[in-house]
């Protein structure tokens, strides 16, 4: 241990160096798990080193040169994570891609990044890469992880992961090769380019964010220290590997702290796999927490009366005292006792079902989380926190320190991060994590990062009196209505999205007379409701246009309007009209980003007719929309979309006065 302490942490600057260190200090500790063939296959740090070394040397044998790019395409698989380190160990730069993007999107990134090798998870991804054929002028070799379906492929440049590793093993027979490899790693410097992450960007082509080892290592080290992460953490890696969050949580922080990363079996089994692993640190975008909560509420609807009453009683109790207990505040003996019962009867089992029993720290970021959702988890005794981050910052811009958790802020600046708010309200930051630049795009780099290292976030926000940052909306999205009142679409959307029945909302109102919204119902939740109420439907479209569903949506909108009328800043943007869209917003159709964010401008263009209908007073509108099916085929659906008026409330002055007084 003494050796480990001597060499630990601060002296190292690259992940391959950390790998060597971890293999030494945590040799027999589990570094990676993957549920495969029904059980959790495990690799210790020593084994991980071995795997990485063989693959790395195999790549070298195949001719990978320092500075060359290797694309990683696939889901969260140990071998893809090993690829990161294997490539980095010989000076290459890994470029992870979103595996659900279509071939053309991939082609752009592969070409732009000048990737010479592609490491693919399976046949599906290999097919995509092969289908681009000649368009990929740099790509030389393709390596795949899962051989299924690839037996009959006879391309010369196609190799299995094992074959490459076998080459590495062969090379290792010469002891000098191994020594050279280690020596090569030793030469790695913090300033070297570590990885390129393509941001899926709401507009334009994706940009390749170049991050150096220093960016990532320092950010990871700071983050680990901030939440006291050590080698004992278990995390579950289920978010896209191309996303900076996953890269930092499941790779950078894991290597720096030496903790264990677990890969689920498949997308469908993620919930079950999370329950099995029970991560100690869990990151999820608000959407995941929302889905979980919706599932809970839907299931509880089906529970017996007594159970439901019990659930409601204890959830009420938790709402009152749960968070205070979590924050370490003083709570009465009776309340504590009740909380203890609640823990046995409700909170504990709920956490157990969600697989969050052992969660020490949880983060949510990427979007505003509904305050009710956030409080729900907090009140169960789960230390869920918010952070605000960006790819360009190696994630961390702000984070909530323990004990200072607010549902509507994103916390204080993270360690070593400086923040400024400019005149227009946009948030700027400067930190060691700030990216090197956009790959082959100096123009974009310049417009985002100034010469002093300050980076524009593109988000509008302000510091509250406690020094916590509050993000309202994208800076460019915040607008004004014709009457001059403030219009922050996301604010309204988030309020509506809190209802479990509503999955997606797009609000309009900038430069308009009033605010109006598109709604997407949540098929799981509403479908369940329909089943219970004997409402039959054949498709999403049919359910969405059902009068009873409309009635339900009207109630929700009404509720939001009533809320808004109580807040004098936002009262002007009450929803006057709404419609329920005839199709689910879908990333395949370009309506959502790959991280499932609404692409407002695209939608505004695509559904222009409907927006016009919202504002011209018509009661329904016939539209035809092109859709992309899962297999890539195109088709179109048409529908007569109904538009409803919602009740608008006068500004409740009393309420606002009271709030002001508080």
């Amino acid at each position, binding site marked *: 241990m003494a050796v480990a302490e001597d060499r630990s942490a601060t002296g190292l600057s690259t992940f391959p160096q950390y790998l060597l260190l971890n293999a030494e200090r945590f040799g027999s500790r589990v570094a990676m798990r993957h549920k*495969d*063939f*029904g059980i959790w296959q495990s690799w210790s740090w020593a084994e991980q080193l071995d795997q990485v070394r063989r693959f790395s040397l195999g790549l070298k044998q195949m001719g990978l040169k320092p500075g060359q790019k290797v694309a990683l395409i696939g889901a969260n698989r140990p071998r893809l994570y090993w690829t990161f380190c294997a490539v980095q160990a010989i000076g290459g730069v890994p470029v992870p891609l979103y595996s659900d993007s279509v071939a053309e999107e991939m082609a752009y990134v592969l070409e732009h990044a000048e990737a010479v090798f592609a490491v693919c998870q399976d046949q599906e991804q290999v097919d995509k890469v092969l289908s681009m054929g000649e368009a990929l002028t740099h790509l030389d070799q393709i390596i795949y992880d899962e*051989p*299924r*379906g690839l*037996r*009959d492929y006879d391309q010369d440049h196609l190799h299995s992961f094992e074959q490459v590793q076998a080459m590495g093993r062969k090379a290792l027979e010469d002891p000098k090769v191994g020594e050279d490899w280690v020596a090569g790693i030793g030469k790695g410097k913090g300033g070297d380019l570590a990885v390129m992450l393509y941001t899926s960007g709401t507009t334009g082509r994706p940009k390749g964010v170049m991050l150096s080892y220093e960016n990532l290592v320092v950010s990871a080290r700071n983050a680990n220290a901030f939440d006291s992460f050590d080698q004992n953490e278990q995390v579950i890696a289920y978010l896209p590997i191309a996303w900076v969050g996953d890269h930092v949580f499941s790779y950078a922080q894991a290597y720096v702290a030496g903790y264990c990363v677990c890969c689920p*079996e*498949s997308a*469908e*089994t993620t919930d*079950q796999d999370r329950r099995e692993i029970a991560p100690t640190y869990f990151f999820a975008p608000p959407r995941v927490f929302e889905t979980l909560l919706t599932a809970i509420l839907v299931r509880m609807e089906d529970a017996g009366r007594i159970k439901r009453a019990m659930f409601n009683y204890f959830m009420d109790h938790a709402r009152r005292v749960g968070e205070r207990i979590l924050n370490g505040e003083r709570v009465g003996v009776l309340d504590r006792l009740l909380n203890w019962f609640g823990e046995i009867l409700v909170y504990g089992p709920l956490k157990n079902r969600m697989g969050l029993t052992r969660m020490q720290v949880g983060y949510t970021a990427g979007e505003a989380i509904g305050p009710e959702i956030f409080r729900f988890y907090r009140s169960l005794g789960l230390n869920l926190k918010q952070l605000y981050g960006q790819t360009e910052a190696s994630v961390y811009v702000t984070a909530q320190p323990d004990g200072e958790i607010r549902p509507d802020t994103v916390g204080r600046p993270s360690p070593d991060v400086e923040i400024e708010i400019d005149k227009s309200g946009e948030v700027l930051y400067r930190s060691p994590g700030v990216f090197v630049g956009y790959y082959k795009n100096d123009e974009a780099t310049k417009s985002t990062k100034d010469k002093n290292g300050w980076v524009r976030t593109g988000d509008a926000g302000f510091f509250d009196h406690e020094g916590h940052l509050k993000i309202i909306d994208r800076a460019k999205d915040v607008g004004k209505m014709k009457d001059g009142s403030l219009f922050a679409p996301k604010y309204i959307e988030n309020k509506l999205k809190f209802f479990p029945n509503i999955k997606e909302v797009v609000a309009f109102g900038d430069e308009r007379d009033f605010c109006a919204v598109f709604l997407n119902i949540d098929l799981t939740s509403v479908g369940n409701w329909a089943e219970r109420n004997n409402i039959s439907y054949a498709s999403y479209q049919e359910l969405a246009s059902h009068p009873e569903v409309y009635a339900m949506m009207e109630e929700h909108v009404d509720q939001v309007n009533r809320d808004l009328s109580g807040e004098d800043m936002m009262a002007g943007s009450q929803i006057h009209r709404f419609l329920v869209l005839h199709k689910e917003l879908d990333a395949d159709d370009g309506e959502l980003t790959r991280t499932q964010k609404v692409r407002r401008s695209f939608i505004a263009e695509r559904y222009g007719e409907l927006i016009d209908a919202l504002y011209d007073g018509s009661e329904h509108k016939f539209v035809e929309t092109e859709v992309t099916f899962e297999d890539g085929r195109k088709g179109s659906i048409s529908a007569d979309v109904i538009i409803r008026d919602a009740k608008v409330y006068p500004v409740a002055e009393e309420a606002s006065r009271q709030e002001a007084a508080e």
Partner: protein
Amino acid sequence: MNVHSQAAAAQSDDGIALGADLLHVDNISLSFGGVKAIQDVSFDIRKGEIRAIIGPNGAGKTSMLNVINGFYHPQEGIISFKGRERRRMRPYEAAAQGIARTFQNVALFTGMTTLENIMAGRSLKMHRNFFWQMLYRGPALNEEMEHRRVVEEIIDFLEIEAIRKTPVGQLPYGLQKRVELGRALAMEPTLLLLDEPMAGMNLEEKEDMSRYVLDVNSQLGTTIALIEHDMGVVMDLADRVMVLDYGKKIADGTPDEVQANQAVIDAYLGVPH
């Protein structure tokens, strides 16, 4: 993957070259009481092909499969499999020789889970004696784990991870069919008989199942004989098609030949589909 290597091994051990006759049926006749189910039918199945048997209801298709795997004993005719002739054979002997099958109306072991069902397909490959079975230790345990691994590869192959521990009775029909295919695959058969593998499925499920059938054929090298009603599916999948009508063979050939055959058209016009 293990499945591949084992299948490849199975492929070579019978010494039959790809494309050579794997199964030969000569002048088979089968009747129950006075009802003639099959009349003087001869055909062959070649190693590595997908062979379809089609025909209207009651044409004797399922009976033919039953004859091939020893469930029915034909009154006349000879069957030779892997070059060995036989007249009477018990189903378990057919299984031991490498013939597996699925059933028209899913015949899963309903009291067991998906995993156990597929594990059941490994029965022939497991040999540890009673003593070790009693202890569930040592060789018996090792054997069990070894085969569990193979079963997991099949589960992976058929993408049924999520229902691994679900009792099969609770599964929707389409998945049950998939589990049944898995169970047959677990036997690592030389010849796989599929009795209407896509019956009662929706389009998407049919597409999935077709893909699995093709994958089994191309990746595991398994020879497949299948009965199917959906002509589109048959034409897409099969290398050769035999048509039965009222127990008699009325056509045999490539999908295109069969489709153009007047006798086949007549038979199918007689029975609307």
